């Protein structure tokens, strides 16, 4: 029987046709002729979130915004710290870090090189995340109260303002795009540093109002902003203090000195508290997380190292303990000095602001707030009040009270010195020198080096 069947199947045309047909019909599934229409297997889609986001998706977006705010921060810090002559970023693989950024010979800042494009794009990606959060809050059917939604909007808008500020710090008078939330539209350019800062200040004020609608409450998502150091990690009041701290910084940048003092009143300023209390970018070695991208072993070899600018050592006031805290002498295994040289630059100290790959990077901290208050008071003529704040910073650095001339000019010098040493490596010196018209005082390391005022607009903005 089996033989007959086999014979039929394999030797007659009808048989073979039957066999082939059977094979076709039995072929797996119905997709022999039809391609399917797959969803992206590699992550949640924007379309889905904009259609109707769940509460947990909005929470994911909030966490993602803070996570994204850390991406490519090393490039940002290299940009501002190298141009601000705080440190050199030695890299044998990328000569532009000691070339273009220092204006070596005839090099200029390029509008299509990574140091211009990448931090800019990373900040706007964080903004897109926050914008998506705002849009999701508008359409979501999740069980959220209006107050919860308002606070979440305040959170998103605060981050948008902060991220935009970071880009404005780079492009300065060249400006930035601000109204970028509508999808697939290119927002108009706002040029002029002052015009940008005014918009950002307004944005922060509005966000503060939204956050206030749920004062005393908690966000429905965790946040890494925890200015009081308490264990609670989603308090809205904490976040409002962060919002006000950034507002104070922006007011200082736009020389609204009374505004600085007003904003500081709502912030976490605490002259009796730890100078390091504040808002930080957090890092961990956990899966899917980032480590501190600015951290490098200060003893790393010259081909890949962050080298403290020698002027940081030589300009320091006698006894300033911050020098030893933030700069580590480079030594060989036998303890002999091991200076690093690259591209006609040479330095003996490695950058030691961060001591581990999980060290947090300050966004804004108490020391800066105290210095902002001092600055505002100097500018407003309240010189003695300012000196008290400066002395708070000085004593923490092991220095005696300020004994110099109590004049506005002398105190501004002292303020800028304290900002330079207290906030060393945290991205301030270049911006401070710029806003006080002192870029010309920054040291030139090689005869034809330049000190840049601002970055060009990235090429892909097609401005």
């Amino acid at each position: 029987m089996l033989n007959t069947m086999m014979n039929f199947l394999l030797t007659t045309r009808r048989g073979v046709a039957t066999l082939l047909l059977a094979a076709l019909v039995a072929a797996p599934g119905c997709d022999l002729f039809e391609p399917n229409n797959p969803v992206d297997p590699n992550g949640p889609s924007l379309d889905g979130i904009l259609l109707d986001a769940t509460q947990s998706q909005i929470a994911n977006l909030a966490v993602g915004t803070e996570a994204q705010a850390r991406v490519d921060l090393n490039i940002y810090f290299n940009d501002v710290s190298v141009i601000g002559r705080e440190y050199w970023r030695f890299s044998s693989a990328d000569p532009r870090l000691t070339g273009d950024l220092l204006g070596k010979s005839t090099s200029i800042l390029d509008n299509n090189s990574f140091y211009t494009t990448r931090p800019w794009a990373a900040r706007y990606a964080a903004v897109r995340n926050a914008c998506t959060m705002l849009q999701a809050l508008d359409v979501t059917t999740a069980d959220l109260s209006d107050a919860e939604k308002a606070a979440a909007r305040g959170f998103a808008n605060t981050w948008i303002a902060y991220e935009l500020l970071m880009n404005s710090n780079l492009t300065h008078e060249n400006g930035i795009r601000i109204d970028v939330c509508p999808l697939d539209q290119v927002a108009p350019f706002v040029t002029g540093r002052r015009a940008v800062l005014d918009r950002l200040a307004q944005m922060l004020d509005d966000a503060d109002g939204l956050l206030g609608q749920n004062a005393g409450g908690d966000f429905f998502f965790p946040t890494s902003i925890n200015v009081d150091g308490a264990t609670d990690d989603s308090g809205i009041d904490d976040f409002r203090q962060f919002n006000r701290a950034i507002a104070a910084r922006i007011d200082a940048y736009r020389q609204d000195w009374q505004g600085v003092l007003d904003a500081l009143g709502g912030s976490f300023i605490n002259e009796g508290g730890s100078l390091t209390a504040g808002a930080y970018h957090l890092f961990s070695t956990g899966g899917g997380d980032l480590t501190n991208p600015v951290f490098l072993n200060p003893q790393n070899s010259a081909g890949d190292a962050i080298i403290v600018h020698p002027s940081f050592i030589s300009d320091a006031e006698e006894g300033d303990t911050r020098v030893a805290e933030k700069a580590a002498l480079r030594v060989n295994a036998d303890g002999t000095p091991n200076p690093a040289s690259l591209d006609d630059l040479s330095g003996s100290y490695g950058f030691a602001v961060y001591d581990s790959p999980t060290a947090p990077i300050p966004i804004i901290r108490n020391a800066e707030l105290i210095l902002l208050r001092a600055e505002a008071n100097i500018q407003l003529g309240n010189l003695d009040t300012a000196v008290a704040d400066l002395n708070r910073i000085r004593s923490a650095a092991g220095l005696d009270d300020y004994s110099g001339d109590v004049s506005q000019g002398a105190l501004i010098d002292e303020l800028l010195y304290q900002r330079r040493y207290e906030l060393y490596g945290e991205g301030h010196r270049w911006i401070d020198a710029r806003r006080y018209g002192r870029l010309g005082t920054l040291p030139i390391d090689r005869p034809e080096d330049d000190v840049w005022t601002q970055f060009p607009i990235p090429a892909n903005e097609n401005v």
Partner: protein
Amino acid sequence: MKSYYPIRLLTLLALLLGPAALAQTANVSGTVTDADTSEPLPGVNIRVQATQVGTITGVDGQYELALPAGNRTLVFTFVGYRTQEVEVPSGQATLNVQMREDLLGLDEVVVTGLASSVKRQNLANSVETISARELSGTTTNQTLDGALSGKITGGVISSYTGAPGGGISVKLRGINTINGESQPLFVVDGVIASNASIQNGINAVTQAAAGGNASSQDNPVNRIADLNPEDIESIEILKGSSAAAIYGSRASNGVVIITTKKGQAGSGLGVSFSQSLGFTTLAKKLGSPDYTLDQALSIYAPDAADDATPDEIEAAQAQKDFVTNLFNTNGKIDLEDQLYGNKGVLSTTNLSVSGGSERTQFYLSGQVKDDGGIIENTGYEKQSIRANVAHRISRIVNMDITTNYVRSEARRGITGNDNTGTSYGVALAFTPNFVDLTPDAEGNYPDNPFNSSNPLQTRDLSDIGETTNRFITSGRVGLDIYQTETQGLKLVAEAGADFFDLESNLYFPEILQFEPGDGQAGTAVLGKTANLNYNWRGSLVHSYSLPESEVFFTTQGGFTGANEDRNTQVTVAQGLIGGQQNVDQANSVNTNQTRLFRQDRALYVQEEINWADRVIGTVGVRGDRSSLNGEPDKYYAFPKASLALNVAEFDFWTVSQVDQFKLRAAYGETGNTAPFGSRYTTFGPLAISGITGITINPQRGFADVTPERAREIEGGVDVSALDGKVNVELTGYVKTITDLLLTRQVPASTGFNFETFNGGELRNVGFEAGLTLLPVNNARFRWTSRTSFWTNSAEVTRLDVPAFAALGGGFGATLGLIQIEEGKSPTQIVGIDDTNGDGEADGTFALGDASPDFQMSFYNDFQFAKRLTLTVFGHWKKGGDNINLSELLTDLGGTSPDYFDDDDGDGVNNATERVNALGVSARQFVQDASYFKLRELGLYYDIPTEYLGSAVGQTVRQLRLGFSANNLFTITPYKSYDPEVNNFADQPVASGVEVTPFPTSRSFLFHVSVGL
């Protein structure tokens, strides 16, 4: 099951089946032999002209055939022999035929449809065929892709690395896409074979993508390298859209059809064993400067600044003492030789057994390859086994099965670009030759004082390997449904699968100099990719002949489907527990998973009309759907039409010296589906302090994406004269690609970096010429020669976006980059330049072009007394520029060989001049990458078996000894190891960006082969 009609069609045809009676009138029989050796030829195909009646010869070369009434012309065809047409004299019942070897491949058969083929003589396209002899007969190439280099007329085949395991970019007939898939479709015995290039994750250490170009720079192997070249019978290359249209929406980059060896019917058992053994060495040394102490100090221990602090002065003096001491102690060390000077042993063993009866043929083969590299601890190993079986189950059913298992292991080290000083080449560039990097007696490596890694330590103590296990199988069933004297109907069903599992295991122990740099000493990377391609096809082929008018019709139609599933996981572990390599033994572990799916479905029909081999016309169309398109259910049609006119076959043709004079023209369209994921805008995970959030990916998806469409018109003339001794093939083509899949940068302020869209137009105009000669052919000396010339010029004729940098096209205008710009060649190189001589950059200007002006290849084969064969294969590429950034790194590191030379005599040395030009002009990086390479040279001697003594001589059919060399020499003005290089591996447009690559090697091999 939504779509029934192909099945209905089959059912209908099945019902129509009926027994076919053949009218038989007279029998003819005879023996077919080889004209040179007089040996009988089994397996020769014999067909009565203009009918479907035929048979094949048996083991002894004999055949018997019933002649239909009124038709006595027999056509004898056999692979590798010239086709013969012989008329059986009336009344004669015996016909013996002698066949001649087809040395120049004039009568080979070329695949033109999905289920049919046509004689080359009747072909309307220029289709390249590479025989086993040309592919692997001269020397043993490490990989299949390497064996193709220079051998495809109309192709730019460029090896992007010298690393063991290969890595090649194939571009057929110019630039076919800007951002889409750019590799041709590889079809192996009907299976769509993966040629994926999968990054091994070494970026975790090199951080190459962290700087100026975020493209992956892991120097991946492309997977077609897994195939064993020795298994390949022939490779056909459908270069342009007019030839490849029947492959539809995956064929814009051309199609490479690989056919593996089968046993021959009635040939008896053949055993062939071959062993090659040789070594590989660095092909070219760049050298390093002969420093004087003062020169060394000027670079590595500069004077302290005038306003230096006492600390700085002390430090500068310490550095001076340090360098002086090194200089005096070590003298000049040949670091290049220490790093690249290994003589890697190359060994390849092949064993194959083939044979067959009239019903069953088989080919079994095994290969074991173990190749070392020019860098210690690098190399390539492969084990491959294959079983191909063809069986005629009954008079009407035949089937083929091919199976191939390959295991390959590549150890490629760390080369190319990095941002951490860990790549061997970058480390070498920054290490002056008075530094001793070798370990002490206890095996402890010194730290490199001038770079973050000691390359000898990295090389010796790291473990960098990728292992692939791959299985390729295919099956094919043919059924003669219906056969009469004038008609035949065949059903062909085929299916196949290609599965590979790739594992990359990278281990950098904590004691490496660079490892503590990120605070997490010790790195392990485990990458795993599983990739499954499977495809199936059903075709019906109807042939119909009108004997009176000598017109043949071949009609075919069918459906085909292909799926691809890929799953890639890469786990990076940092901060390893001492000595541990498993990724869980670490302080921080990061895992990434990426999946890829593709489903393609298509229907096709094709009609071919042949009037007495005089006029051959073909029309066809294929409709494709794909899950990668914005509308997966929409059919995209790809038509084709062609006409070949064999003028010499007409009666009016009287030039007897010219055997063939063919005019041909062909038109066709193909597509290129968007890369997977172009449709989607997706969030990715990113954790902060242990809590995971989602962040927007840089790509803005394009929901309505459609395939790119290439339209090509091709025309040509083929002439064969003097009894096939002189053959000329001339082809011109114009190929226009529209709906280009452009990935445009979007203003980053939108929150996205780029998006895919359809727009723009690209045009390739090219010319190809081939001259094949058989100048001498007698018993004492035979010379065959093939010379090819090809050129292509591409232009972006319309671009709906501003000019942008090509993917992987460099590191920005300061260093030179390949830029896509309307009205320009897509491969133009632009960069900043100082046009008015004021020492400042004046903007971005065109500085060169990566595409060659033209290429030529020269293949010559000399055979003396049928015993001694010399084969020489040369390849000339004229023009085409590279962006050479290796020199910049050696200039900055103080190690350029001409550092202190002063070519222009202005008192400023070369390196200083070049470094000063950095930021002013990128012109110095754009360098002419023309070359002439003697790619292959082989000398073989067949020992006459009669010398072996009667006992051995009867068993041994062939005993061959040989010597060969690969890449024997290169003539080039290019200032680095090899003008064939690309830091970004295979890219759609960009090529030739060099950053301290794995240097190219040269190899020498001895061969023994025995045939039983």
